[in-house]
């Protein structure tokens, strides 16, 4: 018996060692395979997952290992790509390789249409993920309710001053509200227009369609046929349609809230005219029936060559590059208005939950995620904009549309007002716009109705 057992034990131990070695080899091979399977986008200087920091040409400020960091942190983010998990796994692998090998990062995603509800539930649970990606539309309400950690001291750390300076001041303005700093700005989403260049060129309108609102409406009318809609934009709150509405209002000098955020900011004749133009273009018979096609449906119609001028979002550039339509296309901004030529964009910050019990590791992870190599690679992978100024020249080398967005549109971005009440104000006012787009209100009536709803929200 003894001899039998003593013979079996070493044999079993060897077997396990062999299995362990095979598994380790398989994992290494899988990791290498993942790198190869990534979409190939790379920022000059960006490391591949697991590479040593020696390969980073753009110095990563967090490359110095944090020896005491350990434990687990949760990180939650809305998806910007079907490969969101893989892309973040790359970032996490680099974090473990370069910064904190003993910190386990548990990544999860929330669902955009219900992300406020999901995050509210997570915060209410008392144990939310340590790090959250929050957009400027929603974080102010969470900050107001005290569930986000004020990161003022962290972002003003002298050791991080150079990195802080690389992030645009306008992005910091969006993250610094209510007397605190609620996150590190990392990404931006610009709401651009896609145009079917082939159709516009055939109609002789390629160079003139965006001269003014009138020329855009005229072009939309000229391009509309039984098969093609001249213009398309989102119209329902469920699709966050206000992103397509904002630039016309900003170009007219208006905004949802007044400068001090205490009352409706949709004032002045230019704002009324802008609203009237939007009503006119939606009632001119150049768009799909209002409310009949959702966000994705509109883009699908454009990709099928059935919408000539479409308001949408830059992540769809990936879709057009991967599955090129049988026409020429490019990106553009809405025409200039009487008081400006803005582009709408909203921005995302990385925040730390006040309830986090591992804020130090969370901060190190945020610094790593926001560093040039990581955020640059991710932005290229998902076709989003960055708010860092030091990597602009290297980004989107093989993506002319994104180059144009980044160089021509991002500097014109006027974002939303990060008030705690902004989402409720938009939700309350938007049905008025929906009604107006159906031809039931004039521009003046629509603005008056919106202001009534917005003031109602602000009055509590």
């Amino acid at each position, binding site marked *: 018996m003894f001899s039998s057992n003593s013979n079996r034990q070493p044999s079993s131990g060897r077997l396990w060692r062999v299995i362990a070695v095979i598994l380790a080899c398989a994992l290494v091979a899988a990791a290498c395979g993942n790198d190869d399977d990534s979409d190939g986008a790379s920022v000059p200087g960006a490391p591949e997952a697991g590479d040593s920091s020696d390969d980073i040409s753009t110095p990563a400020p967090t490359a110095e290992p944090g020896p005491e960091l350990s434990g687990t942190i949760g990180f939650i983010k809305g998806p910007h790509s079907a490969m969101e998990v893989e892309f973040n796994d790359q970032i996490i692998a680099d974090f473990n390789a370069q910064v904190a090998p003993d910190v386990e990062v548990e990544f999860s995603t929330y669902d955009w249409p*219900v992300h*406020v*509800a999901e995050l*509210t*539930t997570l*915060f*209410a649970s008392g144990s939310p993920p340590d790090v959250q990606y929050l957009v400027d539309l929603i974080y102010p*309400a*969470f900050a107001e*309710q*005290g*569930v986000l950690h004020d990161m003022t001291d962290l972002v003003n750390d002298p050791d991080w001053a150079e990195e802080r300076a690389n992030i645009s001041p306008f992005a910091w303005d969006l993250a610094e509200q209510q007397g605190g700093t609620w996150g590190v700005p990392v990404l931006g989403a610009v709401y651009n227009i896609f145009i079917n260049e082939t159709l516009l060129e055939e109609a002789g309108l390629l160079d003139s369609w965006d001269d003014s609102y009138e020329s855009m409406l005229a072009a939309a009318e000229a391009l509309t046929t039984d098969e093609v809609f001249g213009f398309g934009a989102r*119209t*329902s*709150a*469920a699709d966050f349609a206000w992103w397509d509405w904002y630039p016309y209002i900003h170009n007219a000098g208006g905004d949802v809230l007044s400068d001090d955020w205490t009352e409706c900011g949709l004032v002045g004749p230019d704002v009324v005219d802008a609203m009237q133009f939007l009503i006119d273009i939606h009632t001119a018979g150049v768009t*799909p*029936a*209002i*409310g*009949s*096609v959702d966000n994705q*449906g509109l883009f699908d*119609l454009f990709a099928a060559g059935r919408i000539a001028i479409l308001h949408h979002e830059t992540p769809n550039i990936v879709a057009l590059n991967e599955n090129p339509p049988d026409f020429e296309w490019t990106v553009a901004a809405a025409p200039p208005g009487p008081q400006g030529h803005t582009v709408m964009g909203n921005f995302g910050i990385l925040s730390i939950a006040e309830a986090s019990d591992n804020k130090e590791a969370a901060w190190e992870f945020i610094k790593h995620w926001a560093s040039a190599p990581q955020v640059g690679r991710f932005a290229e992978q998902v076709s989003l904009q960055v708010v860092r100024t030091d990597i602009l020249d290297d980004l989107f080398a093989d993506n002319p549309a994104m180059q144009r967005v980044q160089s021509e549109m991002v500097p014109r971005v006027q974002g939303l007002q990060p008030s705690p009440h902004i*989402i*409720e104000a938009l*939700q*309350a006012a938007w*049905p008025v716009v*929906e*009604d107006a787009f*159906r031809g039931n209100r004039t521009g003046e009536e629509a603005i008056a109705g919106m202001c009534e709803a917005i003031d109602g929200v602000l009055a509590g």
Partner: protein
Amino acid sequence: MTHIDPGLTGAQMTLSSEEHRRLAKRYRRRTTLTAYAFLGPNLVAFVVFLLIPVVWLLVSTFRTGGVLGPAEFVGLDNWRDTFSDPLARTSIRNTVLYSAMAIPAVFIIAMILALALHAIPRGGAPIRVALYLPTLQPAVVAAFIFTFVLHPDFGVINYAVRWLGGDPINFLGDTTLALPTIAGIEVWRGTGFWTMMFLAGLTALPGELYHAAELDGAGAIRRFIRLTLPLLRPTFYFAVIFATIVNLQLFDSVFALTDGGPVNSTVSVSLYIYRSLFLFGDIGFGATLSFLLVITVLLLTGLQTYLLRDRK
């Protein structure tokens, strides 16, 4: 336990009135305790998962906050806001309108189908399965299915409309059509369930009454009105109450199909509660709307119980 001596005569076996009372009392106590023992788990669940939350809901109607931050007492502010909020009124109107459309429609269709199925002596099972399938579809799946039915571009109905020379119908984008369309989809989902319910009721009806009525010369319509409908009263009683409770809580199909739009024409009370609680963090307001919904359901159930009571 009382032991009876086998040698006692009948007169001697008679219990004294005091002993009878004592034994009866003991019997009642034992049966009562047994009943409570069986009811206990359910009562605990009722108290923990219903009574306490409803009381807590009532308390929340007088407060604000309490989920992400501390709660604050605000008196009757939430109640004032609820009754003065135009969207709250719109959501109540939409919910009542939807129920008024969906409940009678699904009952009439289900009853016709149940009568037809009842008349089929053999081979009805495949039809019953086919009828019941829509009930098994979650709202999201139903929404997806109806995209291919209602879509203005490639939907089956609009394809037919265009083929016939008409203009596409904007079912979910038209403010006057969106709510009836959702009601129609819910009727489609619910028809199978109610058909089976009514069919079960019909199957349980006593056949001899129908034979007697037939011999007396009563026609099919007369038999239906004079016999079937009165005899199905218990089934209708359950159906009306259950359908009212379910339909007043309309949420999933609205959430999946229109998110309350267009122009708030499909905002239901439940959707507005969801938005208030989870989107705007307005806990007190959402709690007040929720409590109103609970009270409305209770009142309507009471009213229906009164109207449908058995008037023997």
